């Protein structure tokens, strides 16, 4: 059985109703940007060690099970390890002779290579975690409204903010739908004798290739239906559109942002 839904949680939303879920979406988006900037600035293991307790705090407060997040990151982590192995083996930087642990032609394992790969790995995991958490704990409606309001001022410069946000949100929303679709197709084809659940990784990957044509066809069909639906309901972007519920960031929301920013500055400076 091809169980993608279990192993890929990107783009999913889990309504656990926690404090993390209730924080104003705009604050969460800005906080995520702070995290992203911090992930590029922090360049020591100590710095990431300082970050870790905050991530644990967010995880606990969010009421989303850690096991679910970890299992849902399996494919991502496997891919990351694969990439990092290359980073180590083909490390291009200067390495003093004493730094080499193993060498064979142009392949090598050096202290410097391991260190860089380690930092890079943590950086990517950190980035992945905060963006995944943002999506797990923010409904798409909130995410859309938040992004629209943050980038709203750009509309004066004739940037089509609403349309861009809509495209972004639809793209994210389609990920889980596609994953479900792939699973359904794989089941139907398994029934006809394509053994998706047997064979080595390469044979399996090749079988998944068979799903591409039907997936594209159903994807286009879905996009077509969505366009028609939006047209029939007179979608015309955000112009003149008012909202029933306006977002309001309270003291607690701002405090969260302040805490995160201070924590990240601390992690950067240590």
């Amino acid at each position, binding site marked *: 059985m091809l169980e993608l839904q279990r192993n890929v949680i990107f783009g999913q939303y889990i309504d656990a109703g926690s404090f993390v879920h209730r924080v104003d979406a705009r604050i969460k988006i800005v906080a995520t940007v702070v995290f992203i900037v911090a992930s590029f600035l922090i360049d020591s293991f100590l710095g990431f060690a300082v970050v870790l307790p905050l991530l644990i705090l967010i995880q606990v407060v969010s009421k989303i099970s850690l096991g679910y997040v970890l299992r849902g990151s399996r494919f991502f982590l496997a891919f990351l390890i694969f990439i990092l192995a290359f980073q180590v083996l083909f490390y291009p930087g200067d390495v003093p002779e004493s730094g080499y642990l193993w060498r064979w032609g142009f392949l090598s394992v050096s202290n410097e290579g391991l260190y860089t790969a380690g930092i890079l790995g943590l950086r990517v995991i950190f980035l992945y975690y905060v963006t995944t958490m943002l999506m797990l704990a923010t409904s798409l409606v909130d995410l859309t409204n938040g992004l629209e309001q943050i980038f709203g001022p750009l509309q004066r410069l004739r940037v089509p903010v609403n349309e861009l946000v809509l495209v972004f949100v639809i793209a994210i929303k389609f990920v889980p739908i596609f994953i479900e679709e792939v699973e359904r197709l794989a*089941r139907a084809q398994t029934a006809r004798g394509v053994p998706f659940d047997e064979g080595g990784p390469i044979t399996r990957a090749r079988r998944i290739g068979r799903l591409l044509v039907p997936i594209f*066809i159903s994807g286009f069909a879905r996009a077509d239906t969505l366009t028609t639906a939006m047209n029939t309901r007179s979608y015309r972007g955000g112009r003149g559109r008012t909202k029933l519920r306006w977002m309001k960031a309270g003291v607690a929301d701002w405090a969260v942002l302040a805490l995160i920013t201070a924590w990240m500055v601390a992690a950067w400076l240590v």
Partner: protein
Amino acid sequence: MTSDGVPPILELRGFRYTYLEGTPRAVEAVRDVSFRINPGERVGIVGPTQSGKSTVVDAFAHLLRVKPGQVFYEGHDVAAPGYDRQALRRRVGIVFQRPESQIIEDVVGADVAFGPTAAGLSAAETRERVEESLNTLGLPYPEYRLRYVHALSGGQRRRVAIAGVLAMHTPVLVLDEPMAGLDPRGRRELLELLMRLQKDRDLTLIVCSASLTDASLLCERFVVLDRGSVVADGPAREVLREPDRLAKLDITLPEPVIAARELRKAFPDFPTELLTEEELEAELVARLGAS
């Protein structure tokens, strides 16, 4: 075991299934479903949406992570270690709700040939089966074998999907909502075809539907599901004898049964186990003649 010692061809024993078990998105689709299907039976699995029909269908061919001790084919546990799942899938043919999903090749002939080829049949034998299946479904072989599947109409695609399953010569044929999206003529043709096939090949036929009308035309027995449990199981007429219970579920009752329920207002003992309009008419004529 049945009375004559033949094991049921398919059996569910306390089958339960939860999608995405152990995650926050877990959905319990089926809870504790048990029934047996004997070789050659024509069974309708009827229930509203979300009743667990499709999950049960997937379990028949071991397309889900089935737990041991719950699903049996000819008396063998399909989830037992070492059980040959590929062989099971060559015996239980499934036509899914959306036929597009089970079409593998782009060209009609190649797609129908997929199953027999994968099962290791010779080229000549495969060709023969493809020709036979396409002709049976009213898609003449010489005309259709090179057509592109995606250029066909919805009804034709469904026929290609059915042909692909028929070409496997499976002893069990499962159809999930076979009538959905077909026009009256398409329904009639499919119905006649299925009846003919069932007789000629001695198939075990399983039809899933939210409509008792569709199921009543094909099946002699109903298993009624609701929210993942069996609420009725028995010969078609017996199940129809309790129409009030069925009417509470979100399923389509056969026209004669609907009429009979109305007629009960005039004749409180009016029977509801009527499968055809002729039966309804005869019953009505008898009553009116008597009074």
